[in-house]
């Protein structure tokens, strides 16, 4: 295999217009382009606005999620998340108005209204989220008006989510649409008073593989209750109590910073950024929360918990570090929050990050990312398979962390792969998640299977 790793971004991009979306750390003159729409024909890994809204709201367990559009959008997101529920399973159903040609021509509002009637009568849900899609947005269906009327008729929350796919090529816009829908849901009606409590809300936590429950257990052990998570294992009723919390902790910043800001403005709830991915991050986050409550009892319990759990993590990491030290890793994930966590975890295992990037990172996030990495690391915004392939080969990557679409490309190139996506069935959060992560990194990076794969490539030096 060739090893012609170039350091100047101008030579890196396969498509000229993508040059400024790829930078190399240490090359301080260039800053990354990360606000552009995806380039037509570049085979972006990004999804759409609808997708962003759908993934954020989906874990609201007892709500009906109705997609207003032709069948595809609902079909591709049917039960798509590994979010677990302690109660209702309603959220796992995928409802679609299944727009047909005549709805596109004559307008889909009537069908939407009829579908809402059917759903309200059949399921009596506490709330219905109505997602607009490309076509319903394009033909100008007034979903706000239809939802308002249905809301009055059936006396439940029927909430429009303005998530037409074409609004932007960036999922983040969909996160905002979801955030607006959530705020609409939790804003108390006139005259309604929400009781203030010492509980906190956990924003940007989706309970994949039960991840929220892991953190809930830690917090309970140190003496703090979670009011509700946005939106993992949440119910409509619990979400409506969110304004009564004394603190918001924000994990997935991409999806929830804006919501946290709005909740500060509207309800005076302060917020803290947390990150429970990786043992160090988890310990730091717990300390931050404990400090907010400023209670010696809580602090003491926090330190005891951290000490106990850290020891377990340390033992495991020491065992595997020997095999992983010096291996070269690539990271390509949806948002920067996840990238930061993985960079830190892999670095703790003695691995070198040689390539990283996100679908939706912001400029400040990329700057911070650059500061965490060694010189010469390639950073890509909105990468495509051709670029990922090129750098996996050039940078001689041993293991990659990413989502489903990248997985098999890595395998084809003889590169191990760590799943960090909606597809997961086992959580990666907290101390126990950190242990699982280390074991997975080892299992894939050091798998004997790569011997055969690389042999096919004619590599003999592995």
């Amino acid at each position, binding site marked *: 295999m060739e090893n012609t790793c170039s350091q100047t971004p101008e030579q890196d991009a*396969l*498509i000229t217009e993508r040059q400024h979306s790829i930078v190399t750390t240490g090359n301080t003159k260039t800053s990354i382009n990360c606000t552009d*729409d*995806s*380039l*037509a*024909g*570049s*085979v*972006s*890994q*990004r*999804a*759409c*606005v*609808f*997708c962003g809204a759908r993934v954020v709201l989906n874990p609201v367990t007892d709500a009906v999620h109705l997609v207003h*559009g*032709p*069948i*595809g959008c*609902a*079909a*591709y997101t*049917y*039960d798509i998340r590994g979010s677990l529920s302690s109660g209702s399973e309603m959220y*796992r*159903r*995928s*409802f*679609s*108005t*299944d*727009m047909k*040609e005549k709805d*596109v021509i004559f307008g889909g509002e009537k069908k939407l209204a*009829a*579908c809402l009637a*059917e*759903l309200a009568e059949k399921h009596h849900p506490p709330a219905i989220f109505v997602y607009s899609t*490309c*076509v319903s947005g*394009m033909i100008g269906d007034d979903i706000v008006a239809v939802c308002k009327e249905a809301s009055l008729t059936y006396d439940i929350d029927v909430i429009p989510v303005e998530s037409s*796919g*074409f*609004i*932007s*090529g960036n999922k983040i816009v969909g996160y905002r649409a979801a955030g607006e829908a959530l705020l609409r849901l939790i804003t108390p009606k006139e005259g309604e008073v929400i009781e203030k409590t010492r509980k906190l809300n956990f924003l940007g936590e989706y309970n994949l593989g039960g991840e929220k429950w892991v953190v809930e257990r830690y917090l309970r052990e140190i003496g703090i209750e979670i009011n509700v998570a946005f939106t993992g294992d949440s119910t409509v009723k619990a979400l409506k109590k969110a304004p009564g919390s004394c603190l918001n902790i924000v994990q997935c910043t991409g999806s929830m910073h804006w919501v946290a800001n709005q909740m500060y403005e509207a309800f005076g709830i302060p917020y803290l950024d947390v990150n429970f991915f990786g043992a160090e991050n988890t310990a730091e986050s717990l300390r931050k929360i404990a400090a907010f409550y400023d209670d010696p009892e809580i602090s003491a319990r926090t330190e005891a918990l951290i000490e106990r759990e850290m020891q377990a993590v340390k033992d495991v990491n020491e065992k595997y570090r020997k095999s992983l030290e010096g291996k070269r890793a690539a990271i390509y994930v949806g948002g920067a929050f996840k990238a930061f966590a993985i960079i830190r975890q892999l670095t703790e295992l003695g691995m070198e990050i040689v390539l990283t990037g996100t679908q939706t990172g912001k400029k400040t996030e990329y700057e911070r990312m650059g500061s965490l990495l060694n010189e010469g690391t390639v950073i890509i915004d909105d990468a495509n*398979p*051709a670029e990922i*392939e090129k750098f996996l080969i050039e940078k001689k990557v041993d293991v990659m962390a990413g989502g*489903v*679409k990248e*997985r*098999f*490309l890595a395998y*084809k190139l003889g590169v191990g792969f760590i799943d960090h996506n909606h*597809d997961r069935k086992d959580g990666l959060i907290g101390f126990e998640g950190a242990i699982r992560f280390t074991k997975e990194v080892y299992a894939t990076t050091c798998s004997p299977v790569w011997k055969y794969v690389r042999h*096919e*490539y004619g590599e003999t030096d592995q």
Partner: protein
Amino acid sequence: MTESSRNTCPDTVKLVNENQCHMCMPLGGVIAFKGVEDTMVLVHGSQGCSTYMRLTNVEHYHEPVDVASSSLNEKQTIYGGEKNLKKALDNVIRVYEPKVIGVLTTCLTETMGEDLNRIIASWRTETGNDHTDIIPVSTPSYDKSHTEGFWTTTREIIAYYAKSGVLPHARVNVIIPHISTADIRAIQQMLELWGVAYTMLPDYSMTLDRPFAGKYLKIPEGGTSPTEIAEMGGAPLTIQFGCTCDESISPGAYLRDTFGVPLVNLPLPVGIENTDRFMQALEEHTGRPVPDRLRYERGWLIDAMADSHKYNASARPVIYGEPELVYAYTCACMENGAVPSVIATGTPHSHIGPMLKERLTDAIEMPVILEGADFSMIEKAALDTGSTIAIGHSGGRQLAEKHGIPIVRAGFPIHDRVGGQRILSVGYAGSLAFLDRFTNTILEKKYASYRTLRREELLSKIAAVPCEGYITD
């Protein structure tokens, strides 16, 4: 608010589609295009469409599946997507250097009324590119399902390449429905055992199920070559496994009507009789008897059917998925004495209803037949009719999860297990493989619980008998 044409189940009138059993038209188009040599697919619409179609394929095939998008945003939705489509063509050519680009519309660009032919012609004038084949296909997903997307695209590929005046040749056209790559290879192997030369379309057996070998290619080798497709009009015969396909989108009918190629439209060869029909067609075409190997395979299948017939007779399967597959599996089940309880397809436009009724005349109990179905309908019918086992794709996973109805996985997409692309069901050998999976699923379920179930059932019956007046000692 009724739309009774959506299903033939008399007491179900519904509007909301809950848990989808089918996908959108361009998805079928993507798969068909992956069966043409050196092709890249470009979906004209917003970014999400291509991402979702990639994801669905990646999760099923466990292969990298690149699909480009023209990435339309609000501005282009208002002013038209011409500029984006042209730029997308440029970029796809720059990075992938394909010989063929398949361009599929989406519901968005169909609603906008984008004229692909005009845009492509204008792009050719501007760029001077006349060597890249660009095949536009209209796939409005508010109209039909991914099944029709597959057939329509296959037909359009032929319409683009096939020429008149081609010299007659001996290669038989073989047109397949959306089946697993293992099934494609099995059909090819049968043709090879017969010594029949063929042009198969679309052949995605190597592009969506790549053997590991050497250097990674952005567009994998394999697929039907345009040269061969161009000559399909000179073939002596078309064999199409597309009984449920409407004439208006039938690739075989196109070849018959345009070039006079005789069409033998067969059911997918799953089960004895359907495979016999395929063999018979080859016998008539070649004038030779069935090769020994296939005769043995037929014998092994019959032998196995006898071995497992009583187990199979105990099952009431619910069969769901794409019409062509559903019909074939129904036939195989009927031959094995397993009378289906529910037969369902998400596709509303196929010819499966009358075909099934004809096939089910001997059924001791008539199954519920659903067209244009979703999983809320399928689930209800399965429970109402006492289904004990399911045959179909991952969309039905809640049947197993919620109701303990185990699924024999078949069709597309299969994303909660590995090996969806390796599921073999066609031919005598494939039917036997299917039959064993089916029977063993029945047995596995039975053995997992029969001791407890029988004990509880029979002991509770004893306990229910009043014992007053009996001599107890």
